[in-house]
């Protein structure tokens, strides 16, 4: 009998062990990740999150080139969800500056200005901007003075975190600027709103303008002085440069008669007087050693073929602009590249009336485009290159990924803001200084004073911006400010979908809010005309 009872006793002992050890096992913690409290427990941890705040516009994901932070149904190539690539598609591809040979669904309608709320690129742009805003909001939420105090940092550490916070607020303001410029009246969400089941409210263009203005002015006291920050991080000059950019366009965002040209002069002057100078050779601004000895760039988006891989950014700008001719590809540092995509329509090369202008960086191509999908029709744009200024091709794991940094803010634009704001009647500047800036740009372009002018019209300023800033994502904004984007005052090849170009309706000055966002957020009202 004794033996028989042993078994149940052993069994119940075993059971007790099992039961006692188990229920707590339902609290499984993931490996290789941190909870917020651990991530934000050190300054280094804060800086890793700050890297993501910046990385949201420099990279498509944290998992390399095969994944994206955002999911847009209909975009299968995640490289297309990159910030600069999308901004190019919105700002350049919609204009005379660019046309693309790829037949991807929804891509051709961008140049044709057949803009609809189901366009996947428009949705991706909106989502990419909001992704960076969301990541910034999270950072700002976790770096309030109360949060810093509760985590027991010393005064010096607290100051560092407050500098980080100012940069996160700057980046958020920048993305709201992009959204205001493209969409007018987007959703609005800040660090004071919760993560999760929350429906953000819509904000008007005018209110968003005020918010961006107040945010930028508010961070002025805590963001680092010009030239004092690490490479790749924003400082006061970037903040001023963004204000100046926004003020130049104020009456687009606020309605005619609400211009801020005087403010544009004030803030562009602050940048201009902060110790920047023009890069002596124009084309070196767009080469892969542009992170070194660059006196002109105020804030870059850095790329690196090994550490910061991305098939958007400058890799896209360079590879999409070339064909598959091996000699041509290796000349521009992309021996594995050449995607046969973007080139220019005829007005862009034509604006360079004088062949001596060194900014005219073009390749071959027929100037008449009868077949949009034929890359050889249209003029190739060789502005960006993966070669260094000394002719070296930097290391690239596949000969495609590029290491050229993208100039998000640079001095030349600030000159042009000053010039235009003065010409449009802002006060606080003077025409002589403006003329001097104008000729500084032309002297660099020509390498001598042969191109200098004694006067210029508003149209000349637009053309000068075109020559200086083409393919740097300004063209659509500039044409809207000049009233030339929609309507038929200015037409270019394939505008409106017709080979010779045709006028389009004024509602296209704003992009439609994406259909996916309208579905998800019932508080939004679609822009007029869509």
């Amino acid at each position, binding site marked *: 009998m004794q033996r028989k009872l042993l078994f149940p006793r052993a069994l119940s002992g075993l059971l007790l062990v099992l039961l006692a050890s188990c229920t707590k096992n339902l609290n499984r913690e993931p490996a290789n990740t941190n909870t917020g409290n651990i991530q934000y427990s050190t300054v280094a941890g804060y800086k890793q999150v700050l890297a993501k705040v910046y990385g949201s516009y420099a990279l498509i994901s944290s998992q390399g080139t095969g994944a994206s932070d955002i999911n847009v149904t209909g975009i299968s190539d995640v490289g297309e969800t990159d910030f600069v690539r999308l901004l190019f598609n919105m700002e350049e591809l919609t204009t005379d500056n660019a046309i693309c040979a790829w037949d991807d669904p929804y891509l051709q309608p961008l140049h044709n200005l057949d803009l609809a709320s189901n366009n996947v690129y428009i949705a991706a742009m909106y989502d990419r901007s909001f992704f960076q805003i969301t990541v910034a909001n999270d950072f700002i939420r976790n770096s309030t003075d109360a949060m810093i105090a509760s985590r027991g940092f010393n005064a010096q550490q607290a100051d560092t975190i407050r500098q980080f916070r100012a940069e996160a607020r700057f980046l958020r303001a920048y993305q709201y600027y992009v959204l205001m410029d493209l969409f007018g009246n987007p959703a609005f969400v800040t660090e004071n709103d919760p993560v999760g089941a929350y429906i953000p409210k819509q904000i008007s263009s005018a209110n968003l303008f005020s918010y961006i203005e107040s945010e930028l002015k508010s961070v002025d006291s805590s963001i680092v002085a010009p030239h004092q920050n690490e490479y790749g991080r924003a400082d006061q000059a970037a903040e001023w440069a963004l204000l100046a950019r926004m003020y130049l366009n104020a009456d687009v965002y606020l309605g005619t008669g609400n211009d801020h040209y005087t403010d544009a002069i004030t803030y562009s002057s602050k940048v201009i007087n902060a110790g920047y100078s023009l890069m002596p050779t124009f084309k070196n601004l767009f080469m892969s050693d542009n992170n070194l000895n660059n006196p002109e760039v105020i804030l870059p988006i850095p790329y690196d073929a090994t550490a910061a891989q991305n098939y958007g950014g400058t890799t896209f700008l360079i590879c999409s602009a070339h064909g598959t001719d*091996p000699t041509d590809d290796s000349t521009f540092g992309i021996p594995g590249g050449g995607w046969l995509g973007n080139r220019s329509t005829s007005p862009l090369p034509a604006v360079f009336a004088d062949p001596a202008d060194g900014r005219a960086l073009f390749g071959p191509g027929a100037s008449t485009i009868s077949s949009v999908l034929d890359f050889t029709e249209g003029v190739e744009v060789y502005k960006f290159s993966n070669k260094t200024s000394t002719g070296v091709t930097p290391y690239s794991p596949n000969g495609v990924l590029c290491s050229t940094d993208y100039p998000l803010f640079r001095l030349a634009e600030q000159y042009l803001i000053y010039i235009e704001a003065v010409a449009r009647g802002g006060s606080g500047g003077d025409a002589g200084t403006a003329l001097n800036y104008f000729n500084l740009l032309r002297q660099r372009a020509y390498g001598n004073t042969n191109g200098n002018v004694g006067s210029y019209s508003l149209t000349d300023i637009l053309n000068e911006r075109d020559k200086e800033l083409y393919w740097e994502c300004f063209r659509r904004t500039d044409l809207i400010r000049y009233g030339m984007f929609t309507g038929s005052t200015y037409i270019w090849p394939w505008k409106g979908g017709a080979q010779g170009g045709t006028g389009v309706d004024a509602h296209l000055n704003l992009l439609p809010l994406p259909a996916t966002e309208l579905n998800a957020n019932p508080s939004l009202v679609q822009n007029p005309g869509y």
Partner: protein
Amino acid sequence: MIAASLLCLLYLPGWTQAPALSVKGIVLTDKGVPVEGASVSISGSGRGAITDGKGIFNLRAPGDATLVITYVGYDTAHVRAQASVQVTLHPASTSLNDVIVIGYGTAKRKDLTGALAVVTEKDFQGGEITTPEQLIAGKVAGVSITSNGGSPGSGSVIRIRGVVSLSASNDPLIVVDGLPFSGDGIPGASNALSLVNPNDIVSFTVLKDAAATAIYGSRASNGVILITSKKGQAGPTRFSFSSQVSAGHLIKEENVMSAAQFREFVDSNSIGTYNGQPFSALLGNANTDWQRQIFQTAVSSDNNLNATGTIGSLPYRASFGYLNQEGIVKTDNLQRYSGSLSLSPHFFKDALKVELNLHGAVLQSQFANSGAAIGSALYFDPTQPVHAESGYGNFFEWQTGSGGNLTLNKLAPRNPVALLDLYNNHATVQRSFGNLTFDYSLPWVSGLHANLNLGYDVAHGNGIVQVPAFAAQNFLDSGQNNIYKGSMQDVVSEFYLSYIKTFPAIRSDINAVAGYGYYNNFTNNWNYPSIRANGDTIPGSLPLYATSPAENTLISWYGRLIYTFNGKYILSGSIRSDGSSRFSPANRWGTFPSVALTWKMQQEKFLQSVSWLSNLNLRLSYGITGNQDGIADYSYMPVYGLSANGSQYQFGDGNYNMATAAAYDANIKWEQTATWNGGLDYGFLNNRIYGGIDLYYKKTSNLLNTVPVPAGSNFSNTLLVNVGNMTNQGVEFAIGASPVRTRYWKWNVAFNIAYNANKITKLTSVNDTAYQGALQGNNVQINSVGYPADAFYVYHQEYDKANGKPIEGVYQDLNGDGIINSEDLYRYKTPFPPYILGFSTDVSCHRWTVSTVLRANIGNYMYNGLSAAATESNVFNPLGYLANTLKDVLATHFVYSNPQSDMYVQNASFLKMDNLGLSYNAGHVFRNDVNLRVNANCQNVFTITRYPGQDPELYGGVDNSFYPRPRTYTLGFNLQF
């Protein structure tokens, strides 16, 4: 502690014997046919005998002994040992006393309260079957088993009564001998089930309604498949050896242009130019059938040896199998070494039954680069040669440039033969699983048993992909040498009490179970950098973490009561409470109840007089089950993860890994399905005709859907949340009959048909009429409210009224607003068949048996992606190459692809003969010691369909390139000795 328990179990109580007597007996079927090869054993001893060709056996046994007679396909019989005995065996298929595994116990078939189906070995599909689920394809009403393709060891998609989930898993829970499989994939194995040798399986039980499945709680919504492996049979050791060899070949090539047609097409239709030259300049002089170049006749062999019997008093079964299977794509090969051991000792006069099941397998795979090669074989220019002098291993490849300055045209298709020959991906996977179960009849309460089930499942896989630097397929990366490795470790422990007791006084039977279960699932993946052919690490590819482990745990309490009154009325109820580590503490526990009623109508007096009625059971059930498979392990938690080394942001001179917040839904939980089921089981004419009919309605709620979330509200623009509802309703009908059962002739037929209708009823938290639905990544399917899952979402093609040809890019303006835009897309058909049919029959005459299995799907549609790509612009590529395509382009002359046209959504209904087999039972050979059976088999015999592509049966309903299922001829034999 287990070891200690085992040790004390080994002290066996002695047993006394009555005087021995000599027993002579005969074993007959219920039709009086002698059964040869039946096993006769003396209960409680290890001894026994086997019947001879006349069904006769002789042995010596104690006078009070019980003889146990077993024979595959028949009920086990028990008789008391006497000098002369006659035993009649009844076929198991129609036996209502059949004991059926139902999950945490067994039940007699006649007492079932749930909708379930059993398929035993004698009804398995024959031929070359590498992976177990294929054994029951077409055998069970409402169960669709669609193989993923013809690759060796490739898995199948199993669906029971349609799909209940859009985002989580739709795979049923698979339980082997009481051990639930986690469903995790293993690196190096295309299918985890391919490590289970089908030859070690004796039966499948498919649980379909909630009455049957709810005891499995949060993992039961997709149905449950219980697999029982072969166990030791008492008696002297018997061996069985089977060997088969098979040859498989491609049935049908995709209908692409021949070299001659292609030449003519290029010469006469060239559109545009490349680099200013006409496309005809690119034509080559060869005539290459690229599909013929990459496919082969695949020769395979499968050998299995097993031994079963009793050692001492220990019944055992041991088996060993070796499979060597080639794929019909060249270079594809799989070898499997498998072994299993089953011990089923009884102790304390059968009071304690112990069962040990161990299975192990080693899989060695050579994976062809089949996906790339099959696709490329369709598109590669047939006028180009396989080999040409080149820097790419002397394979012809498209190049670009001019004169002597040529480089690889990296955007062109790659040479299909080079894709195979220059690609070496080989992997080794080891897997072992098993369990130890104890069933102890507690001495102080009669009918009360304590059960303990301790199980494990471990696997480890590793492999490497090697491509030389000169190979065009990896030219930019200079080849590859990439390692992959992963493992999993699952642990199961369950304890339950069961109580089975008859109370004659109150005419009641009670069958009750209550228990506890603990299930832990741990997986690990090793992370490696990308390595070039020369061994250099590709910069930026160094992984941040050496491994990526993940773990989830499930803890359960469960109970079931089956109460039978008067042998006629059965009421059963079950409940399971599951706690899952996948969900936040607030949502962690879920309760899944079921209730069922069975009325055994033929027991009623008014039906007992109906002589032709042998069985009539009415079943009604309702229950709630859950689904948590396919939901990521930690998705409720807000966490930060560091970015990969190729995704850093530069601050100053340094690069920083970015700490990234993952999008999360704190409220995520299991999906839940409520199932109503009504069924009728019938048997006529002494069960010569038998079957059942079931009606069901399933409503899934908390359906996970990836929905766009308001921008700015989470760390992604889309989020997986529990928002939707979906319904499935259907009818299943099964009938089986044995029309002929004579001494020499036997004929069995079985037929089943199932109808299922699926409908999504909710997808967003607020009912939003503007929400079109969740468009699938392929842009031609959508999940939307009011329509079935994965409905095709297309434009209505316009046709030329004169000649009936489709007009390129012209669609009907369905909403009549004068504009053709996305508002004119409509939902047209689905890939899921409303009707699934299965038919099996076998005819035996004396020693010969012919059998066949046919399956049909009716009403399923396929998106013909290959046809949609058959355009002139795909042939004439301005990047400087030519590509072949389907001959469809000769009819349509479409210039550009119109992928959203409904002309590509095509009826893919089919009738297939899966299997045609012939076997011959030679009976005793070699001095009557050896029993020989020989069989021949053909699989994938024919397909009748209107679908023009290679195969109308592709799960998901999108036909791009696909690993074709071969037609396979198998010859085999089986020796028993």
